């Protein structure tokens, strides 16, 4: 793999005169997991949304290497191209599973819908693949016809992950994927994510305020404060040898058990 998958240049987003994030630059390579950490209001979700074609930046560019090897600015794609990207080559795991799932259709249909978006029309094949993916995220096969409304928070989150990964995306965005879950459920989800990301060679960008999540999942991390990246590097180095005052504060604020 000799080329990055994503290239971000001077990305800046203002909400009117208020700064969302500014001058963000980085490259993401296939198989690489990048964590974006920082406290609430630091601009990390703004950045994630600007990267994932959901929030147009005020200036700067986000270039993505498409499956045909062409580099494209994601805000210059046609609506059809953008939709195709979002439905197949990308995944987006929301903090609240209800934002990423359709709560009133069955679990199987939630997974199958993404397959139909890439043109799979064979009912038997779709159901079989959905079953396989439910198994991979540890949801019992006999729940396939149930609606996610009847699922626990942890199950919903696992279903959302299955729905996103079924099309074999190359890049997955995650916004606080374990936020709001019990710690035991978090551990299970993290282990599952870590396994899947490694197994599938996914590139991922994970927004989290939880440094333990960042350590477990990511190779590299960026620390954000007041809309800017103040420190970046290898995850274990940023956590074990933080340079910036704010990063030192974050790391020293972790509660030990």
């Amino acid at each position, binding site marked *: 793999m000799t080329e990055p998958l994503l290239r971000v240049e001077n990305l800046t987003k203002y909400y009117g005169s208020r700064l969302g994030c500014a001058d963000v630059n980085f490259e993401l*390579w296939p198989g*690489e997991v990048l964590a974006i950490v920082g406290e609430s209001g630091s601009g990390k979700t703004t950045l994630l949304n600007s990267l994932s074609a959901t929030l147009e930046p005020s200036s700067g560019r986000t270039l993505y290497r498409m499956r045909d090897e062409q580099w494209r600015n994601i805000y210059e794609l046609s609506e059809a191209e953008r939709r195709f990207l979002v439905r197949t080559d990308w995944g987006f795991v929301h903090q609240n599973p209800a934002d990423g799932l359709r709560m009133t259709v069955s679990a199987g249909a939630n997974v199958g819908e993404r397959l139909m978006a890439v043109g799979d029309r064979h009912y038997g094949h779709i159901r079989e693949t959905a079953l396989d993916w439910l198994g991979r995220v540890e949801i019992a096969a006999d729940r396939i016809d149930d609606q996610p409304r009847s699922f626990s928070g942890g199950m919903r989150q696992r279903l959302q992950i299955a729905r996103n990964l079924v099309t074999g995306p190359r890049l997955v965005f995650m916004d606080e994927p374990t936020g709001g879950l019990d710690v035991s459920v978090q*551990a*299970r989800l*993290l*282990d599952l994510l*870590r396994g899947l990301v*490694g197994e599938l060679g996914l590139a991922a960008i994970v927004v989290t305020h939880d440094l333990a999540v960042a350590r*477990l999942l990511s*190779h*590299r991390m960026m620390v954000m404060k007041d809309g800017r990246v103040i420190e970046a*590097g*290898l995850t*274990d*180095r940023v956590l*074990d*040898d933080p*340079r*910036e*005052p704010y990063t*030192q*504060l974050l790391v*020293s604020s972790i509660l030990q058990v």
Partner: protein
Amino acid sequence: MTALSVQNLAKTFTMHLRDGVVLPVVANVNFDVLPGECVVLGGPSGAGKSSILKMVYGNYGVDAGAILLQHHGEIVDLAIADPRTVLTLRRDSIGYVSQFLRTVPRVSALDVVAEPLVIRGTDKSEAQQRARDLLARLNLPERLWSLPPATFSGGEQQRVNIARGFITDHPVLLLDEPTASLDATNRAVVVAMIAEKKAAGVALLGIFHDEEVREQVADRIVDVTDFAPRIAA
């Protein structure tokens, strides 16, 4: 040809939460490690031995100096390498047995040990077989292999850690007190494993507080107090 060359390395910590107090750790660190040699970092606690080891692994940043390693037939300076390069160095060229195991929930001891081979592309069943052999050699009871090591005793965790560090054939291996919580039998196993690594041409750099073990494995001792930074008046 040296396997690892550390040149003019310097490190300070700036504690911003303590009014920016600057703690000098080491300066002008210079030493080489040859293939087949075990160099031991000596000196009292607090002299900077672990910090040097962590810099050589890329876990700590450096303020100045170079850390030269052979990597895929080229010489790479880990001190200035980008994160991706550090990760491939760790995957293929430099291993590390840390003092404490950082456990991942739900991952079995066997998979923890096999992982460095799996990420290098070794077939999973073959990697697990090598892991079984190592854990058996280190006398870790077989009933523990399928359990996550979080609840293991200190000595059991350390043996998982040693097996994980020794499973690959990295040309450079860093050892941070690998025998600290082991009994005599298992210390002897580790000493034998280190001798085998040396015979295979691996360059080892380690910290051993246990004098008996140190005498058995060390070819040379580098006194870290020689690298004490001079405090500016």
